[in-house]
């Protein structure tokens, strides 16, 4: 039986070999069929429209169990970084209390919601991250953000020395794909999921030395 051997070889090398020993449709044909199935299986419902299925470069390149090639990855990150809007008047920090409320809320943008206004949305943060360690109900898809500012030595978010970490955090919230092409994190600023003030409030939750996150 040399079929398993050929299969292993196919996986180890390239898709072309694998296609050579498959009996059904080729991977490319399956890709096309899958696209068609996805397009025909969904419909508009409430605020959510069927065209939400459309993908940009980053999404289509990150829609398999394989990483995009390095050139594509670089392009995704460069485009993401270019998309970032910096806060008006260089004001990065809001109210950590409002930030905590946003972090707790997973609401918004589903077909049972009624408004596309970011004011109606939560940040979903605790779904994936530990933040204030007093909240025991937190997810683990993303890294822990407990002591986020403290661990990075932020004692005064306005001090010039902390500018790089403050700006990095803003970019991460605005468009996380600037640093990781297939990041699981929603692009809160870029996709208008949260407005500038809401992003400031989450910035404060993470970076304000008075925030419970940094105690």
């Amino acid at each position, binding site marked *: 039986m040399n079929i398993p051997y050929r299969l292993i070889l196919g996986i180890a090398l390239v898709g072309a070999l694998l296609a050579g020993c498959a009996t059904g449709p080729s991977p490319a044909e399956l890709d096309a069929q899958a696209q068609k199935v996805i397009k025909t299986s969904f419909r508009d419902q409430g605020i959510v429209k069927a065209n939400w299925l459309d993908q940009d470069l980053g999404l289509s390149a990150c829609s398999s169990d394989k990483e995009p090639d390095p050139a594509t990855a670089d392009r995704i990150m460069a485009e993401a970084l270019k998309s970032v809007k910096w806060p008006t008047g260089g004001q990065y920090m809001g109210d950590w209390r409002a930030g905590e409320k946003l972090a707790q809320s*997973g609401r918004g943008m589903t077909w049972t919601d009624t408004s596309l206004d970011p004011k109606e949305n*939560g940040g979903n943060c605790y779904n994936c991250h530990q933040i204030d360690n007093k909240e*025991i109900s937190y997810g683990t898809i993303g890294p822990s953000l407990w002591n986020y500012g403290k661990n990075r030595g932020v004692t005064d978010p306005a001090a010039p020395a902390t500018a790089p970490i403050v700006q990095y955090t803003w970019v991460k919230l605005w468009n996380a794909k600037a640093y990781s092409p297939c990041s699981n994190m929603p692009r809160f600023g870029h996709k208008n999921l949260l407005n500038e003030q809401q992003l400031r409030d989450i910035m404060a939750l993470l970076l304000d030395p008075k925030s419970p996150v940094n105690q």
Partner: protein
Amino acid sequence: MQTRREMMARSAAVASLLATAGFLPMAARAEWPKSAFEAKNMADAVKALGGSAPVESKDVTITGPDIAENGAVVPVGCATALPGVKRLLLLVEKNPSVLAAVFNVTDAVEANLSTRVKMGQSSNVFAVAMMGDGKVLYSVKEIKVTLGGCGG
């Protein structure tokens, strides 16, 4: 195991049997104790049921999880090994309706009952035993209710 059709046919017969037998607990209680279910704390609920001031006691046990993954269904139980218990109560301190259940027990059942309650938030949960001699004993347990799911 009988089929449900049989069960349904029987239910009417059972109901009429209970009616003709003069179902004692129902007759004795007259009606649902509305004022007890409207009480805002344990002492008032017990008072509305004709009981004295409750005293904490190790002889009453309250069972339940330390943490509930969802407040909509929280398994709780109340029990006592003391003889002469007439009623067992379950109460959730921070619920709009504090009193959840009153169990009127007889000698034919153990003073050990379980059910499931809703909890709007983390709260103390009380098990109360109202005794034949007029004593009212209770025990308390804190149950934490966590936020679950994506929240969308």
